[in-house]
């Protein structure tokens, strides 16, 4: 069964304290891995898509990497405004009407204290 597990469930950092969030997955034939940011009471905001092992993408203080079994979201020198829940989702090949469907993890809730 396709599955996505994110760790840790919650992470508290001091401003400037770099760290990484983990997304491990089991899926037959990964089509893509997506990272989203979700603020409380709002919809997920797209951050990155990764398609193949070894791929990396960066945006401001965030860097996403992908291996054959997991993805990391590295946060460098975080600021309080980076506080949010970070969701990982994988896209399996699917078939017919299920092509493109995403399987989400439960997310990592990040808190950055000044």
């Amino acid at each position, binding site marked *: 069964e396709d599955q996505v597990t994110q760790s840790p469930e919650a992470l508290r950092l001091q401003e400037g304290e770099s760290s990484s969030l983990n997304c491990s997955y089991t899926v037959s034939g990964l089509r893509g891995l997506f990272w989203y940011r979700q603020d409380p009471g709002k*919809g997920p905001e797209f951050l990155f898509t990764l398609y193949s092992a070894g791929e990396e993408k960066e945006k401001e203080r965030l860097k996403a990497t992908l291996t054959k079994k997991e993805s990391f979201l590295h946060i460098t020198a975080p600021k309080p405004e980076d506080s949010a829940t970070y969701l990982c989702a994988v896209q399996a090949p699917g078939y017919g*009407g299920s092509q*493109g469907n995403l399987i*989400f993890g439960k997310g990592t809730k990040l808190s950055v204290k000044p």
Partner: protein
Amino acid sequence: DAMVIQNPRYQVTQFGKPVTLSCSQTLNHNVMYWYQQKSSQAPKLLFHYYDKDFNNEADTPDNFQSRRPNTSFCFLDIRSPGLGDAAMYLCATSRDAGDTQYFGPGTRLTVL
């Protein structure tokens, strides 16, 4: 700006009273999705439309229905809401199947 809009942002209904949630998009995307997200849980796909073709997830309760009258609009109907249906309902769109999904702000449903 092109976007995904959901109305209302907050909806309160009574146990068993039908409710409809609305989603519209200005992205002209072919695919529209409805997700249910409960507190501290992963978004769960309920169904999606590829153009006019409706695709229901196997474990979506019959209590949930959807309509897509045109490219821009999609509705989620909950025929007889139960207390367990209280959640955030998220609408998303993608240009095509397999493309990046863009989410609306969500509708928070409370069932009294």
